[in-house]
């Protein structure tokens, strides 16, 4: 009967119910879209950052990440790569060589980072070919050709067809220097990389640095980024080599990951602000409803309804409105996120986060967009409903029935 009264009371004052529900629906939808856009943005940034650059998992010689060195290499990387490929969930792998050196084009010189890549694998793994903004990608066989970063090309005033001379030191201590023809200019989306990167075919790099059959890094791409931790463990187990470090992207790019987390915490604050506004609205209308019906609660109590039953009556009314609002909010929030995941929001100007450039912000449609607002709206509405419910439960019948 208490539930029946609660349901009927909900429809009794339609305008007030609609107002209360509206506050909840708006709060739910705003929260859902905020989470959708936030997850979409972070998902997009993480995807760009991992898929296009660092991969989802990296394998190095033990300690390389903390102290990169030309000499800390993975020997027989092809065998290691094959073992990695056998792990379920691994989509692709690609080896890399890293070395610092001096690059010169004509009379201009600057510090460069030489990145030796297996062109075919790198294209499959990190879409290397899509980074070329001018000229061509490196051929799949070693050919003494180079692709340089867009900003590096500016610094060196280099053009397609120019030759770049690399000066460095080989792993055997010899002087490493050679000339490569620039066949392409790349843009990775990261300014620092684009200022220093000089991509060579991995065999050219191995020859230059005397690293035959060796690589500094193996980048692994997985089919589902959410399974990175599980696959990392599986690769570790599969390789069973204590001299190799297998690290997920969160460890490889610690500072980037921390910055993302910190930014997400900032989002959480804005979510609380939205919910506070909703809670105040709900408190106001529920409290008004209780005050208006003081006499009725007095009568209910007079005829034998216990304070606890009165308390649940008010809470039931709040929960009924909240459940209805959650359904409507889920529809609106889901629809808004779906549309934003297709059309997105285009920024007036490109924004940069963690070196990644974003032009359009797309939402992500996921369960979190519905679950988090649903829990938040239900909790905040119930919590703010407690005060009016307690107030109603503590009504003194004789006094309550004197009110009009």
């Amino acid at each position, binding site marked *: *009967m208490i539930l029946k009264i609660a349901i009927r009371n909900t429809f*009794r004052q339609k305008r007030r119910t609609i107002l209360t529900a509206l506050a909840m629906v708006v709060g739910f939808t705003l929260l859902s879209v905020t989470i959708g856009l936030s997850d979409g943005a972070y998902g997009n940034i993480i995807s760009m950052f991992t898929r296009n650059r660092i991969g989802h998992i990296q394998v190095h010689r033990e300690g390389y990440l903390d102290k990169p060195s030309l000499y800390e290499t993975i020997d027989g990387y092809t065998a290691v790569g094959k073992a990695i490929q056998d792990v379920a969930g691994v989509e692709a792998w690609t080896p890399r060589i890293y070395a610092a050196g001096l690059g010169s084009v004509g009379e201009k010189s600057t510090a460069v980072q030489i990145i030796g890549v297996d062109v075919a694998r790198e294209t499959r793994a990190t879409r290397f070919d899509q980074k070329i903004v001018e000229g061509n990608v490196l051929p799949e066989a070693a050919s003494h050709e180079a692709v340089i970063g867009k900003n590096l090309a500016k610094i060196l005033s280099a053009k397609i067809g120019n030759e770049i001379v690399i000066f460095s030191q080989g792993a055997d201590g010899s002087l490493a220097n050679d000339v490569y023809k620039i066949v392409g200019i790349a843009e990775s989306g990261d300014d620092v990389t684009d200022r220093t990167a000089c991509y060579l075919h991995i065999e050219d790099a191995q020859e230059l640095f005397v690293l035959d059959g060796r690589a500094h890094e193996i980048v692994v791409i997985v089919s589902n980024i959410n399974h990175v931790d599980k696959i990392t463990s599986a690769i570790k187990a599969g390789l069973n080599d204590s001299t190799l470090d297998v690290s997920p992207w969160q460890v490889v790019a610690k500072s980037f990951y921390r910055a993302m987390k910190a930014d997400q915490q900032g989002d959480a604050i804005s979510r609380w602000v939205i919910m506070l506004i909703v809670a105040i609205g709900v408190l106001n209308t529920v409290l008004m409803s209780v005050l208006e019906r003081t006499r009725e609660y007095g*009568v*209910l109590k007079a*005829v*034998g309804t*216990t*304070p606890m039953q009165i308390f649940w009556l008010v809470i039931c009314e709040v929960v009924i409105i909240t459940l209805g609002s959650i359904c409507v909010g889920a529809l609106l929030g889901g629809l808004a996120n779906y549309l934003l995941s297709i059309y997105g929001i285009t920024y007036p100007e490109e924004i940069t986060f963690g070196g990644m450039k974003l032009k359009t912000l797309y939402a992500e449609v996921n369960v979190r967009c519905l679950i988090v607002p649903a829990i938040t709206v239900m909790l905040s509405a119930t919590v703010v409903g407690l005060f009016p419910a307690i107030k109603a439960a503590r009504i003194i019948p*004789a*006094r309550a029935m004197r009110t009009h």
Partner: protein
Amino acid sequence: MEQIEKTDVIVTEGVTKVYTTDGIPVYALNGIDLTIESGEFTALVGPSGSGKTTLLNIISGLDSPTEGKVWLAGKLLSEMSGNELSDFRRDNIGFVFQAYNLIPVLTVEENVEYIMLLAGILKTERHKRVIAMLEAVGLDGMADRQPTQLSGGQQQRVAIARAMVSEPAIILADEPTANVDSKTGADLLEMMHRLNTETGMTFIFSTHDPMVMESARRLITLRDGQIDSDETKQ
């Protein structure tokens, strides 16, 4: 909660109720000592502000006295918790209010049924009693109506049916005939009189209505919060 035995009584001892208005104490009741035996048909009379409604509220536990004690069936009301008082009222006291005070979102049947539902009486039994009670108060065929679809007299009949359906030991009626015409008032009074005679329920009215006063077997007159006279008719 155990129901009051028909031989039990209402006892008040030095009941005082003080309201403070702008710092000035106003005595609504001042040292009321009263004993009501079960089966009585008693009217509390007196001018407005004499304390009739306040006394009804206090003896039913709807309000608490500033001083003094109230025993119902030997139980001291001030020792009961909020939930115990609610249960006690549900099982032992029926209320008829001047303004009917029906629950607006419930139908006539549901209003009458409500207290039995709180008491955990089975649905078939509830339905049977509701139908019988609505017939007794002359509202048969109106079970599905909303309170707003009834006249004042009909609403008061529903209120009486609600008060009596769970067969409480005591019916407290605050000006039950005040908002109905004299014909309806006479009918209601006759009905309550009949129920008192047939079932032995204790009826206590607060009233200004000469018809009720005439019908009552005991007249307690209040004045300025005190008992001015207490007459029992032979």
